[in-house]
């Protein structure tokens, strides 16, 4: 029997999204009663893989074998019934229900007649489940009153209670304290003893090496390495994660920093980041690097006035300035390309044209009246300059490709001729050609003397584009690296330190 040493096997699993190959013939074997870590950079394909396993995506190529049998699950419910449970990164629970109600949601003990819920029995079952994992919680407490770690533990309890053969944990430790991580490790060991396979997705190598028995590294949708943890070390894993040579998509630039234009002194926002200080020179590209939740986006948002900072100062051209709203930031010569063009960047139902001129309508209006002629001219210039492809500038922006949408957001920021450009994930979700164009443009803008602050989770672009890298971990700067020190491995090492 082959499945004696393989509870779950992926064979040549591939999955494409429009324009991106998210998974490319991924084959992995998961052995019973082991902890199998799955690691890789953001966008390596981990989440897609897990979503396939959980039945969120059913249109993939290749096959999945559970205990030697081909799995043809048509949805999440089937995955649960097949014995696969997942603890999500974003917890899924009903905040206004109690711990017991959440744990037993969908399978409450109920009377035969009228399906009245038997509260006493529910409490008993809940207590039993909680005892199993050694969680000391009152079953009647409301979910919303628990802290994040407690909620996470409840979710784990729930996942286990489905008698799962396979439990997937997606970054389970990201919101846990050291003490709670200990308890999580204990629970994972217990699960292993009971013959459960744990698929553990994490960025934290230290934990991976402590908990896992085996590790598989994904990069760009492919498996680039798999090994027993006892036979590999952290440096080797980092090398595999980073791997790729820096392609020639990055323009050659000579660094010519001018005077300081933006300074940040001990900037902080409660719960997001603290004591962040750095200078940004004209003609310079500086990156904010760090893992998810390190505070990159939050810093950019505060600099642009989208969120308030409650600590420290921002100086533009050496003068302290309060930035309380995006209007303030724009007046001071800052421009923003925000992280998520769909939710914070574009107005999807408006035309390409209206989106580009949105923050600079005064450039093409007489008093309160917009001059369509002048607007068209301005927009035509930007569209030509950035090579935005659209049949007509009156086309609805939602109908453009991701790359062109991203360029539209850039065009809006550039129309105001900012001196400082804040770019948050400037190339997320766009194809390689468009990426290369944006990199080239960034090079040109820096050459023209603009200062660029980029927040990015993609290490190759951080390494390929930056004059300096500010590495963040848990909301604090751990290291500032100059270009010659800013290797991917070095950045990753500092980003994972805390």
């Amino acid at each position: 029997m082959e499945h004696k040493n393989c509870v779950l096997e992926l064979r040549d699993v591939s999955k494409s999204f429009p324009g991106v190959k998210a998974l490319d013939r991924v084959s992995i074997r998961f052995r019973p009663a082991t902890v199998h870590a799955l690691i890789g950079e953001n966008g390596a394909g981990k989440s897609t893989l897990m979503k396939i396993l959980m039945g969120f995506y059913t249109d993939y190529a290749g096959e999945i074998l559970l205990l030697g049998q081909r799995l043809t699950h048509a949805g999440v419910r089937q995955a649960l019934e097949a014995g696969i449970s997942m603890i999500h990164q974003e917890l899924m629970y009903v905040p206004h229900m109690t711990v017991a109600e959440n744990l037993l949601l969908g399978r409450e003990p109920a009377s035969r007649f009228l399906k009245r819920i038997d509260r006493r029995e529910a409490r008993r079952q809940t207590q039993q489940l909680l005892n199993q994992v050694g969680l000391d919680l009152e079953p009647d407490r409301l979910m919303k009153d628990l802290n994040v770690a407690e909620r996470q533990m409840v979710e784990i309890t729930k996942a286990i209670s489905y008698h799962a053969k396979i439990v997937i944990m997606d970054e389970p430790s990201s919101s846990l304290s050291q003490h709670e991580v200990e308890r999580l490790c204990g629970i994972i060991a217990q699960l292993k003893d009971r013959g459960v396979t744990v698929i553990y997705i994490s960025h934290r190598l230290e934990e991976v090496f402590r908990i896992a028995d085996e590790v598989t590294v994904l990069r760009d949708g492919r498996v680039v390495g798999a090994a027993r943890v006892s036979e590999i070390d952290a440096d080797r894993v980092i090398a595999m994660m980073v791997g790729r040579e820096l392609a020639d998509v990055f323009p050659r630039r000579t660094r010519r920093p001018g005077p300081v234009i933006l300074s940040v002194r001990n900037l902080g926002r409660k719960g997001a980041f603290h004591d962040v200080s750095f200078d940004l020179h004209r003609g310079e590209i500086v990156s904010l690097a760090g893992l998810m939740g390190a505070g990159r986006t939050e810093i950019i948002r505060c600099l642009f006035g989208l969120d308030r900072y409650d600590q420290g100062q921002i100086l533009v051209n050496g003068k302290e300035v309060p930035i309380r709203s995006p209007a303030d930031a724009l007046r001071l010569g800052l421009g923003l390309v925000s992280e998520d063009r769909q939710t914070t960047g574009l107005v999807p139902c408006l035309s390409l044209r209206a989106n580009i001129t949105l923050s600079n309508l005064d450039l093409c209006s007489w008093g309160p009246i917009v001059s369509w002629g002048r607007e068209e001219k301005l927009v035509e210039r930007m569209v030509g300059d950035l090579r935005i492809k659209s049949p007509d500038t009156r086309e609805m922006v939602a109908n453009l490709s991701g790359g062109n949408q991203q360029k539209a957001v850039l065009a809006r920021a550039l129309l105001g001729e900012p001196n400082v450009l804040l770019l948050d994930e400037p190339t997320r979700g766009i194809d390689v050609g468009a990426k290369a164009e944006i990199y080239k443009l960034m090079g040109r803008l820096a050459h023209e003397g603009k200062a660029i602050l980029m927040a990015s989770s993609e290490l190759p672009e951080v390494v390929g584009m930056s004059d300096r890298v500010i590495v963040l971990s848990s909301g604090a700067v751990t290291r500032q690296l100059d270009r010659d020190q800013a290797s991917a491995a070095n950045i990753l090492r500092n980003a994972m330190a805390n």
Partner: protein
Amino acid sequence: MPEHNIVPRDGNAMQKYGLVIAFAAICAVLSIRSPAFLTPQNAINVLRQISINAILAVGVTYVILTGGIDLSLGSVVAVTGVLAATFAHPDTYPLAVPIAVGILGGVLIGVLNGLVITRFRVAPFIATLGMMTIARGGALILSGGRPVSNLAASFNFIGNGSVLRIPIPILILAGVFLVSRFILRRTTFGRYVYAVGGNEEAARASGINTHGIKVASYAICAGLAGLAGIVQASRITTGQPNAGISYELDAIAAVVIGGTSLSGGIGSVTGTLLGALLIGTLNNGLDLLNVSSYYQQVVKGLIIIGAVILDRRKRSR
């Protein structure tokens, strides 16, 4: 000159032509069935009948474009009508006073709505639902619960007079429509209204004072309701504290039939006007055909729901 600069060409054209075709079809059927339908006099009747609803609908289009809603309009019609009427007794104030008082009263209520929604982050539905009751109470308090009658002839002329044989309410509606069309299509303010409704976060990140835009939209909306209140009071030569009940729903219905999205960012006052015309024409035609008004309500309801289903279909493509 580009036809439409803000809202993309395709969807908008479809939506407009769809409405125009529906409207033409209804007119064709009605004129075959009833000889009285396609006469200039009847056309003027229809327009006069819809004028109050259409003014309200144009106003609430601003609010709905920002992604909001205003349920207080019917009560605003009552309170501003009463307010204007109390200043419109013969030989007291010049005509400008009741007009100014009525409109400004509406604007004030709109500003309050806007502030409650933006400063205190109350959902528009709730805020204006509250205002609906408050304004109705205000109308009853101001009038002591009794109709305010004995109004000056000059005031009554607004709702009942004609200029060049066109009733004044129609002229007011035409003015309101043309000015609003200009504001929403050609001015920066209009652009920001669409942007706030289309994606408030992106609008804010573009340096737009989103709160200001919203407050102004509610103010314009209620200000136009004040104007409608004046027309209404003048038409019935009385300030009626019980006037305007459920007018807000008829106005919202016209907006929705006109293709403006209740989630904001998409739509136009042209659509709204067509929507109001469609409802008015249908009511008129069914009257001429002696269809009971009970059935008319059912038909109106079906059209509202049908319009939204079509809209949903169009957008999911």
